[in-house]
């Protein structure tokens, strides 16, 4: 006999889907950044605010809501969050300029913070038990973070970056009747360590700061510098969530602090691997991302569970959300200008390297000087961090030697620009490495 799906189960699934998409929104736009970079005619630092703004608002609001949420009606807060999130998602899909998009992402962040902060009491009420509610909440967060970048990449490739926001609206709309019907009671106070939750939140923030490097930087590198399509880049980036799932399974034999320390070190090693790329090699990127993913899978459950161990479950959940997004924001705020500065220097180095290659190339003098100067113009014209249009510098020129020179220049530019990502990856590796400190501090308390 077919198992009947109960109304509360469907309602829990609808709320879990909305929670997953709100978590996914931290990174879902990552693979659309290059398209936004081109379409909105901007550069890395301004476009990074499409991600930063959302995460910043979620972090600040979730941390501010914190323990206040225990006294508020989760149903009302959740409904308000869903309505704001739905309206802002539609607005983002229609945005025609970067300032409008960033503003609407802030509004979307307000909705997401309200929804996420209220979602744990709602899910506990819908599933009928604290244990199941927490499991669904943690699972929805994990699924959202895992599928976010790949889903965004597929939607961008098949449709447009606007599709990313359009698909969020029905998910939010479906959750509205589910939340409206819930009778969530305030969660009872628990015996828990505020200090344990705080240390775990610091660990979560640092791990998520490392995650920003693995996602934001890799995507910009793969699409803008190496010229991969969003779909191919999504395929490469999928190594991260797949390895995260595998890492979470590895956590069982490791358990406790060892899992968190091993996970943080693996994440740092993967990011260091990305910093030390010796070629434009997708397999090496996948290998490094797999290491990052395994590290995340080990470290996140440890920090995630302990971050909910505060005396007030709803408040701890809000702080946990705030810590994750604060980590992402801190990384993005520090990494975006570091990357912009790196690629500016890298662009100059690339122009000089190209000039050297052109001067030594066995082509005619007219081609030599013209190509070197035209290429410099293309490097100047390209958005910061993006690969210049080498073909434009070779317009109207043909021949075997010219072709060979073109290939050599593409290689010089890719290599120089790839190297310019090094300091940014190294910084995010440092964040991941620092997550070992709260893990060890928690060990002393256990």
């Amino acid at each position, binding site marked *: 006999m077919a198992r009947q799906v109960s109304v509360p189960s469907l309602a829990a699934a609808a709320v879990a889907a909305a929670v997953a998409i709100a978590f996914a929104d931290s990174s879902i736009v990552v693979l659309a950044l290059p398209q936004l970079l081109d379409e909105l005619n901007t550069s890395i630092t301004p476009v990074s605010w499409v991600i930063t703004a959302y995460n910043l608002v979620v972090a600040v609001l979730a941390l501010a809501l914190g323990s206040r949420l225990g006294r508020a009606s989760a149903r009302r807060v959740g409904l308000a969050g869903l309505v704001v999130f739905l309206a802002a998602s539609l607005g983002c899909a229609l945005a025609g300029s970067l300032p409008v998009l960033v503003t609407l992402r802030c509004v979307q962040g307000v909705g997401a913070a309200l929804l996420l902060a209220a979602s744990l009491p709602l899910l506990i009420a819908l599933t009928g038990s604290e244990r199941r509610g927490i499991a669904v909440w943690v699972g929805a967060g994990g699924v959202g973070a895992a599928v976010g970048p790949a889903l965004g990449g597929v939607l961008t490739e098949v449709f447009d970056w606007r599709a990313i926001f359009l698909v969020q609206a029905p998910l939010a709309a479906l959750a509205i009747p589910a939340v409206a019907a819930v009778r969530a009671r305030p969660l009872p106070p628990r015996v828990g360590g505020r200090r344990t939750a705080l240390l775990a939140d610091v660990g979560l923030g640092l791990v998520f700061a490392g995650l920003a490097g693995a996602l934001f930087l890799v995507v910009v590198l793969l699409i803008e510098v190496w010229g991969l399509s969003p779909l191919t880049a999504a395929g490469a980036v999928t190594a991260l969530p797949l390895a995260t799932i595998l890492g979470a399974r590895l956590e069982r034999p490791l358990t406790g602090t060892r899992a968190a320390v091993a996970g943080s070190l693996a994440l740092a090693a993967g990011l260091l691997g990305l910093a*030390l790329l010796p070629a434009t090699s997708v397999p090496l990127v996948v290998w490094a991302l797999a290491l990052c993913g395994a590290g995340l899978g080990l470290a996140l459950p440890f920090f995630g569970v302990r971050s909910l161990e505060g005396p007030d479950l709803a408040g701890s959940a809000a702080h946990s959300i705030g810590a994750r997004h604060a980590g992402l924001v801190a990384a993005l705020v520090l990494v975006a200008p570091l990357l912009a500065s790196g690629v500016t220097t890298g662009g100059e180095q690339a122009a000089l390297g190209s000039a050297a290659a052109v001067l030594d190339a066995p082509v005619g003098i007219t081609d030599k000087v013209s190509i070197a100067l035209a290429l410099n113009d293309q490097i100047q014209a390209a958005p910061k961090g993006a690969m210049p249009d080498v073909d434009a510098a070779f317009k109207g020129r043909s021949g075997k030697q010219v072709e060979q020179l073109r290939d050599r220049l593409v290689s010089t530019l890719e290599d120089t620009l790839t190297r310019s990502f090094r300091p940014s990856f190294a910084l995010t590796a440092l964040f991941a490495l620092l997550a070992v400190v709260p893990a060890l501090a928690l060990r002393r308390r256990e």
Partner: protein
Amino acid sequence: MSARLVIAALAASALLLLGVELSMGARDYGEVHLGASCEQTQLPTGSGLDRTVQRIVIGALDQASCKLGTTRERLLLSLSPNGGSRFKDWNDADEERLLRDSLVSSIDEAEQRGDLSGLEAGILRELARRAPVDLVVQAATHLDDLLGLANLVP
């Protein structure tokens, strides 16, 4: 899978990745190696008009960059009307004077090597000394056309 095995597998994967990257030349990857200022560079060899012009232009670029204390690549890019100034830490007057002097000197050397006839060298020297600097740069990239014209002079 035991805890030790998990840690060993992760450590091995991390060390192997970093080892492979370092063995593939990660340390120097993407670095641009330019010759030092005044470093002797090999001028293009071979006969024909284009090779002659290359020896004159690149020789002049080498000499001027040496006198300016920079590399020939930086000097070349500084001549770009679009954003060339970001490669420049010298003043325009020095650049113009040194470019003209170096071009004249390079033409002299070409004449001594037998690459240019006296007439060709004379025309080019005058052009290098008197023409507006923008024109000199443009002419430098089209010297083969100019020499073609000079050959038509009886």
